[in-house]
């Protein structure tokens, strides 16, 4: 009995010693510099070496994450908790700074009702594929084709194909990654600053007559918008109106004028200037207002004629006292949206 125990202890001790020594020697001799983050990521992973992630073991995944080849949430077993830890190690933060955030907008309104279909298209149901067949099934070769290539490519699900057969973009969700812009064969999606509310939703450069034949809501290059714009922000170039987003002040005058409703905006939510009591009556606002909507005597509080105000916010910018606020005409955005549930 004692004998067995002693030989066991000796052999196991010997093996343990040998292996321990071997490992020590190896780790000294073969020490390799590795990205320390690999180890920390590995630490954060569950270590099941299950291979479910498609990488050979947790080590493989850790390396892939550090090399940027795998996303931080690639470990299926670890779930969200692990993903968070890994994200922290990798220093991946949330979406970049807001401010002049850009969002994607669809510059075509030629849906099933509005646009004319010139022929029966048969074949692969993909916008790009269809666009290569006689420039697409719609009479307007610039029109959205409506098979939703953009919907498929959007990584955050911000795009859905609406009832009109046109994509609808959820501007809240959109991260401005621009993938849809690249994907769309008709180039009808474009990124524009979130603050811009007025858009010409048509890119057809055919002659106005041809456009009118092809679509009810196309830009027919009548130049009415150009004439009415107080800020020289919209021009007809190549048979289609184009807005200079830097100059546009969301006054929406062009929207009012456009005979085909090719220009759109959040018209119901148009802003109005409101002057509060800190007004000192300097008259600067009245002088600057492009539509003469402000009146009032010197040194007296001025008034805005809401009928005339177009919401360009020049006055607000010019006011030395900051006494002018731009307010959504139908209350603020919150109340202007459906309030059925707000009351509950």
């Amino acid at each position, binding site marked *: 009995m004692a004998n*067995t125990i002693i*030989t*066991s202890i000796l*052999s*196991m001790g010997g*093996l*343990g010693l040998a*292996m321990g020594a*071997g*490992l020590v020697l*190896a*780790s000294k*001799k*073969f*020490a*390799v510099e590795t990205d320390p983050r690999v180890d920390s990521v590995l630490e954060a992973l569950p270590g099941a*070496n*299950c*291979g*479910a992630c*498609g*990488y*050979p*073991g*947790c*080590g*493989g995944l850790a*390396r892939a994450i550090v090399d940027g080849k795998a996303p931080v949430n690639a470990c299926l077993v670890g779930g969200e908790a692990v993903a968070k830890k890994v994200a922290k190690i990798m220093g991946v933060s949330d979406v970049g700074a807001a401010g002049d955030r850009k969002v994607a907008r669809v510059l075509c309104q030629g849906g099933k009702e509005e646009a004319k279909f010139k022929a029966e298209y048969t074949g692969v149901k993909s916008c790009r594929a269809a666009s290569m067949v006689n420039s697409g099934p719609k009479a307007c070769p610039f029109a959205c084709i409506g098979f939703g290539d953009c919907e498929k490519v959007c990584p955050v699900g911000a795009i859905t194909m609406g009832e009109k057969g046109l994509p609808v973009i959820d501007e809240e969700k959109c991260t401005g990654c621009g993938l849809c812009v690249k994907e769309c064969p008709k180039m009808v999606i474009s990124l524009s600053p979130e603050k811009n509310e007025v858009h010409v939703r048509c890119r057809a450069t055919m002659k106005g007559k041809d456009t009118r034949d092809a679509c009810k809501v196309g830009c027919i290059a009548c130049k009415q918008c150009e004439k009415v714009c107080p800020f020289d922000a919209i021009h007809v170039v190549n048979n289609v109106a184009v807005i200079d987003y830097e100059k546009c002040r969301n006054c929406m005058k062009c929207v009012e004028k456009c005979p085909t409703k090719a220009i759109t905006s959040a018209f119901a939510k148009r802003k109005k200037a409101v002057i509060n009591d800190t007004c000192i009556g300097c008259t600067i606002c009245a002088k600057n207002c492009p539509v003469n909507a402000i009146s009032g005597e010197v040194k007296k509080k001025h008034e805005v004629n809401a009928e005339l105000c177009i919401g360009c916010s020049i006055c607000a910018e010019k006011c030395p006292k900051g006494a002018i606020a731009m307010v959504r005409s139908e209350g603020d955005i919150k109340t202007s949206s459906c309030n059925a549930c707000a009351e509950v």
Partner: protein
Amino acid sequence: MLKDLAFLVVGTVLVNNFVFARFLGQCPFLGVSSKLETSIGMGMATTFVLTMTAVAAYFIQYYILEPFGLSAFLQIVSFILVIASLVQLVEMIVLKISPTMYNAFGIYLPLITTNCIVLAVALLIPQKGYNFIESIVFGLSAGLGFTLALILMAGIREDLEFADVPEALRGPAIVFLTAGLLAMIFLGFTGLVPL
């Protein structure tokens, strides 16, 4: 002699394939068989380790355990200790000597420690009474059998990316079912070699 070795190879690779007939190494089989390239790398790494293990097991069994009468109870512990350490050693050495080789197949090494084929090969060597040469051949064929299984499965799985597999069966389920069919096919080799 050569014929016996040939039988050993055929028996281990085909008839008693470690994955399809002996049910060993399932976890890496499931995990790594989704891409052909990865499978080949993993297969090669495993084959290498298995051959090494066979040698180690042979020496431990016949030069330590048997002489001291310890094989009945120290087999598992001593084998696994040596395997785990060896794998770790090899990993370190490969990493140092050739980072490219490490990237090609060293990354699979840690996963192999927990591949039960390795311990099974070690334990089967004394159980079957293989001599030194046979042990090496056995280890090698075990690895080849594993590699074969991985490659077949990976090929099929790559094609399945184009298939409309029912939701619920996606992932491990379809792999098991496919493995079941492959195991069924491998039964065709039954009786090929006198065992």
